[in-house]
């Protein structure tokens, strides 16, 4: 069974540009999460989808970040315009509904560098 995949693995963009990150969750997982780790610090929650609906977007830092999950399958996270402080590793995770929904499966992350 394929795990969570993320694309691209690395992205280097200039301040002011736009970047779109993609996450493909494990097939059948209704829950999809985005997290971010900046400068080797803690992994911080950004938002949570249940199918195509945003369940919780309390962690989104500002309105330069837009996440979508059309059709309840893959998700995209767009940063527009990117700022220097947006640099970090963006992780996506997915989980099933049910008793073991706390077992989130993480993708390998996208390392974003804004110069």
């Amino acid at each position, binding site marked *: 069974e394929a795990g969570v995949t993320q694309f691209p693995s690395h992205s280097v963009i200039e301040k002011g540009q736009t970047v779109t990150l993609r996450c493909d969750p494990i097939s059948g997982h209704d829950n999809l999460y985005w997290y971010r780790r900046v400068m080797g610090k803690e992994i911080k929650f950004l938002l949570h989808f249940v199918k195509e609906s945003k369940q919780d977007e309390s962690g989104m830092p500002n309105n330069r970040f837009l996440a979508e999950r059309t059709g309840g399958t893959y998700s995209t996270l767009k940063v527009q315009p990117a700022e220097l402080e947006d640099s970090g590793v963006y992780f996506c995770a997915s989980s099933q509904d049910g008793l073991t929904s*706390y077992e989130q499966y*993480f*993708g390998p992350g996208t390392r974003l560098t804004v110069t």
Partner: protein
Amino acid sequence: DQQVKQNSPSLSVQEGRISILNCDYTNSMFDYFLWYKKYPAEGPTFLISISSIKDKNEDGRFTVFLNKSAKHLSLHIVPSQPGDSAVYFCAYQDNYGQNFVFGPGTRLSVLP
């Protein structure tokens, strides 16, 4: 203010010995605490969890202890192996939602 603290950024242990990783938290409203392991260039992988109603959970070489009165969690790895070298994150899932709150991580190095 960090809700989950891992005060040791790094830990070195000899192969075969016990590794003890610690985690302190401030929020008492949670369902589960979890430990995740992360290798370089990979995403975190789930290791072991403990329910808020338990004080110990064991899975092979890994045991997690929960002291609710002290708001303290620890992960014991016995015996430690070089392949255990990774960054370990503790996290809790709050009982209002399903998102996790992670600690900053502890880098464990198991020396052969």
